[in-house]
């Protein structure tokens, strides 16, 4: 198990839990209510995190995903 594969849990958790973590109007960021700015920030972070995972997957010698079995179980 490559630990970096768990990285996306952070943005996913931040987005799913945004109602508990960031349900505020202030501070406003670029004019946006804080809740909306929080969500926008983590959506952008999702892209960055997936790029990191993609790069690390591409660098590792093993195939990124185990080969699929041909036969149905």
């Amino acid at each position, binding site marked *: 198990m490559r630990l970096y594969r768990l990285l*996306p849990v952070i943005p996913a958790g931040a987005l799913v839990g*945004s109602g508990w973590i960031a349900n505020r109007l202030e501070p406003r960021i670029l004019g946006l209510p804080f809740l*909306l700015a929080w*969500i926008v920030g983590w*959506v952008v972070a999702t*892209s960055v995190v997936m790029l990191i995972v993609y790069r690390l997957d591409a660098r590792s010698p093993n195939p990124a995903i185990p080969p699929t079995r041909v036969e149905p*179980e």
Partner: protein
Amino acid sequence: MNAALAIIAASFALALGLGLRARRGRQMSLTEWAVGGRAFGAILIFLLLAGEIYTTFTFLGASGWAYGRGAPAFYILCYGAVAYIMSYWLAPAIWRYARTNDLVSQPDFFAHKYDSRPFGILVALVGVVAMIPYLVLQLKGLGIIVSEASLGAVSPTVAIWLGVIAVVVYVMISGIHASAWTAVVKDILILGVAIFLGLYLPARLHGGIGPMFDTIEAQRPGFLTLPATGQSASWFASTVLLTALGFYLWPHTFGSIYSAKASEAFRKNAIVMPLYQLVMLFVFFVGFAALLEVPGLQGTDADLALLRVSVKTFDPWVVGIIGAAGVLTALVPGSMILMSAATILSKNVILRDAPPEDPRLPRLAKGLVPVIAAVALWFTFRGGDSIVALLLMGYAFVTQLAPALLCSLLPRNPLTGAGAIAGLVAGEATVAWVTIGKVSFASLLPDAPTWVQDLNVGFAALIVNVAAATVVSLVGRRGPARA
């Protein structure tokens, strides 16, 4: 004919022309027609998936939610990102299995994974039942867009008929190639329109995005944060999770995964798509700008907010471009749904024994396209507002496929075919009961804390689903072993 109408008509013609041209002398086997011969590159896959995901529901619905409900609308921005994270691993696994086993449709996948034809038929029926209201909603949206943008010069009925005829013709002739090429135009147009409107309207009407939110907060305190009860933080979290689970389980989205040439496309998509879906942010801005400019739209009329504020603000030719973008957001997913439903009915319900290259399959599938379109038309004109309830039920229906999908991708599948069938049946029955009876966690558990009562009731159906699937799988596994 006013300028708006001319531009909308031109976009119709362009979509039809591109759709017809997309065929380019291909021999249309079912694989070619339904999944593009598994030869689409990363960019086409991106456009196709984006084209299916950003529908009239997002264009009109997201602005409508921002207008009508405020902060709860933000969930729309979240679930996509969560779904794309999952797709990084799920989509390549589904794609690889489909390619190795020569699969064409979503029910193929489940029938093959569980080695159970009855399960395949069941998944096929669930998919078709879920897709019809989705198609009806696209058609209704199309009618609204054309009639509003043409200032009533074209009635919704005429617009819907024209739209259906265009889609039926190009789907029958070019299949998924038509959807992909229309999606190219649609995506460029919708991106431009959404960003322009989202920046221009707040600036012009309220002096910028910050001042706009100041005014909203002054007029409607609490509108820009989640309420303490109802659509609260726990509603938000549970709804984001459920919608993300259902995201790729729509049969037409699932099926379009098969059309990729290489699984690399999906991993790249998972990087780009979250950024791309920030377009929704600008759609929210339009909804908020409309709230102050064209107040008073109640209930489902909130979906008209984007068009009403555009008609009030812009010259007809700008409205025409907005309308054209709206028309394409209906045509692309509409064509994918029609094609998927026809493929599923012909391959998984009617001609179950035919191999994918059987020449009868594409003939039958194409023949079913106008039939399915006619059914959707009937519901569009006769269905009334209950269609929104049906759509929500459709989303909940496809989400019930999640346990069977996720388990089938594990190294050792804990579920048997019989277990998967039992889970799906029990889950769907719960969805129907909950939707029709308007049941919620609040009504089921009147004494539970608020955060439990606000949970999306879709979770109840998933729990029932998993429980039934587990019990039947355990019993079934033990039975034959003893005998």
